């Protein structure tokens, strides 16, 4: 093994690709597109999409209409004095969007009131009317039951649940399970995308050398395994460059975005609550204003991310390279793609389960099995406390299978790159492995 040659291959692979327009564009545009998408999602969620709707209340109780109107003067109007048929007609003519027919039985029994609308209702609209009617009826029931103010305030304050995690030192710390399982999933997703995306880049590069016929010139100067390792390392480094640029951009954008988002959200919260106890409301919704400090991530996770990405990439990339070496064009890779797609997609799909249940048997097996461990172990490490022996075993299995896979792939590769004009099959693979 001649490392100076491997280094030459690595340098060429890295520099020509890093200088290419497609790489520069994808590096800059991907986060911008993601950011724009994220901003769009936030805009959708926060913007007031609910159109003003009017609801006429035909009230026979004499109390509910008043308290509903007090809740929202623009939405509710009292139509109790009109003839009932007129109200119906108004709804049909769409002068009113809906009407509510309220009777004593709705207060005294558990019978539900009915919201009658024409045209479109909409889930958000019915839900908010349901909330309002629930509140006023409960209020009225409490009033009629003549309960004391203390009891009433008991009802007003709904109990919530905070979760905290017991640490080894015996202290409790703020629980970040929700956030960390999100982080774990994203890290697993990044490894999945990285293995697949950069693996495909490498495969195209191998096919390019083969169809350009340059590979025979190259192999008269170095061993195929040196070429293979140099190329894999070059593309791996390319992946890191892109991840690093994205990480820097993410930090930069979020540093700029947090104050802006904060202002927007405060506005939102203030509007929504109108004088209610913000803190209580927020904790009910599972949102703690102090959660920003929770957003810090243990740096060790990034070290594991790095290691699992590199080992996983070297293993998968060598398979991608073997597939690339066996074909003359990208279209011909289709028949071989299942050997890559099945384990990679499997790992990704398992990840959605592992993120919510990181200590299950399934999760442990998936994070040890070398074909899925690069994706699944990083999710577990982020989400839960993985026993150190499992991390060690996962690494050991991954390294062992990396050497095994590389050994087999290199054999296919060194024969495949010199085979022109013949469509290879799996049985050819077997022949080539025996041959070399």
């Amino acid at each position: 093994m001649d490392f100076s040659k491997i280094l030459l291959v690595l340098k060429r692979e890295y520099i020509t690709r890093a200088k290419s327009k497609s790489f520069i564009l994808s590096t800059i545009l991907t986060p911008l597109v993601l950011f724009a998408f994220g901003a769009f999602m936030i805009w959708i969620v926060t913007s007031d999409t609910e159109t003003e709707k009017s609801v006429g209340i035909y009230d026979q109780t004499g109390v509910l209409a008043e308290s509903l109107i007090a809740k929202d003067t623009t939405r509710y109007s009292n139509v109790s004095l009109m003839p009932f048929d007129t109200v119906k007609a108004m709804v049909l003519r769409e002068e009113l969007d809906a009407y509510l027919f309220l009777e004593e039985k709705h207060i005294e029994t558990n019978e539900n009131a009915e919201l009658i609308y024409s045209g479109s209702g909409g889930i958000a609209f019915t839900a908010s009317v349901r909330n309002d009617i629930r509140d006023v009826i409960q209020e009225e029931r409490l009033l009629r039951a003549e309960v004391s103010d203390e009891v009433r305030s008991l009802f007003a304050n709904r109990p919530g649940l905070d979760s905290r995690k017991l640490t080894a030192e015996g202290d409790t710390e703020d629980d970040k399970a929700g956030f960390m399982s999100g982080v774990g999933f994203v890290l697993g997703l990044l490894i999945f995308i990285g293995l697949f995306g950069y693996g495909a880049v490498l495969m195209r590069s191998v096919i390019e050398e083969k169809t350009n016929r340059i590979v025979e010139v190259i192999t008269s100067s170095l061993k195929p395994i040196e070429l293979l390792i140099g190329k894999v390392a070059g593309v791996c480094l390319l992946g890191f460059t892109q991840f690093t640029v994205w990480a820097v951009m993410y930090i930069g954008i979020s540093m700029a975005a947090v104050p802006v988002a904060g202002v927007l959200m405060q506005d939102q919260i203030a509007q929504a609550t109108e004088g209610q106890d913000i803190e209580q409301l927020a904790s009910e919704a599972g949102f703690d204003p102090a959660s920003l400090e929770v957003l810090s991530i243990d740096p060790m996770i990034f070290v594991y991310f790095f290691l699992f990405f590199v080992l996983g990439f070297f293993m998968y990339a060598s398979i991608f390279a073997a597939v690339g070496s066996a074909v003359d064009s990208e279209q011909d890779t289709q028949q071989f793609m299942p050997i890559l797609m099945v384990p990679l997609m499997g790992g990704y799909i398992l990840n959605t389960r592992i993120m919510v249940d990181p200590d299950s048997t399934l999760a442990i097996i998936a994070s040890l099995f070398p074909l899925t461990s690069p994706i699944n172990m990083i999710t577990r490490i982020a989400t839960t406390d993985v026993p150190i022996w499992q991390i060690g075993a996962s690494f050991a299995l991954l390294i062992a299978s990396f050497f095994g896979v590389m050994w087999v792939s290199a054999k296919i590769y060194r024969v495949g790159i010199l085979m022109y004009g013949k469509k290879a099959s799996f049985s050819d693979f077997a022949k080539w492995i025996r041959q070399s």
Partner: protein
Amino acid sequence: MTIIHVENIRKSFGKNKAVDDVSFDVEKGRIFGLLGPNGAGKTTTIRMINHILGPDEGSITINGQEASPITQRMIGYMPEERGLYKKMKVEEQLLYLTQLKGMKPKAAKEAIHYWLDRFEASDWTKKEVGELSKGMSQKIQFIATIAHDPDIYIFDEPFSGLDPINSDMLKDIIIELKNNGKTILFSTHRMEQVEQMCDDICLFNKGKAVLQGKLREVKASFGKNTINLEFDGDGSFLDKLEGVRLNNRSTNFAEIRVLNGQNMQDILKLAMEHAEIHKFERIEPSLNEIFISTVGEDNLKAQQLEEAQ
């Protein structure tokens, strides 16, 4: 002095014996031609000399050393399937390829510029190879092969696909390299090039080396068994001849290979009866004739048919 020593090498791909017990020696400072129909095992042999493939059996030594990454540096190799990175600039590409052959960046740069100047290609250094014409990129390919100044040059079918200008240029380079004491090995199935250039030949057929030696001696060993006949008149009498093979026949010329040792004077007599004879000459057979009689006419026809398809 022997510079490439090939001894009893064998190489099989599955059941196909691509090279079957081949031995030959290439002498330093000479031009060695590897001849044979397609699929005879020439490229496989060349790949083994270049240490791209390893032989199943036998040994290859270059300058006394077993074929290895070290001997790879002593060889400049231009494969039959030529190619370069299309997206790379000419200079970067040549720097990369020469450094892979073990050159230091500075020396590589000097050598590259020397050759680019000689081929009047200095303006192309910053161009991508994909932008170049076919003839231009062929020149770049030569430079990639010879810039690291090796002792041995191996060209696999060097003249196939070359335009006439580059073909002549390559011929000149090969002669120049030989005059500088370098060793050249090339494979071809075009005999006239071998006649013009080669000192030694080795003829391959079906994985075996069926004939080898110095070109002069090989030809002499076949004796003066061929007639060069120039005539004026009706040439149909040639069809009446028995026990001969007609090569290079045209309206007033024929190269007649005389088989089964019949008397050449009888042929002359027959010819004189039918046409006016301008020239009757006994010569050594052409290499093409040697090739046909060694490989066998039927075998060759099948090969040519395959090529045409």
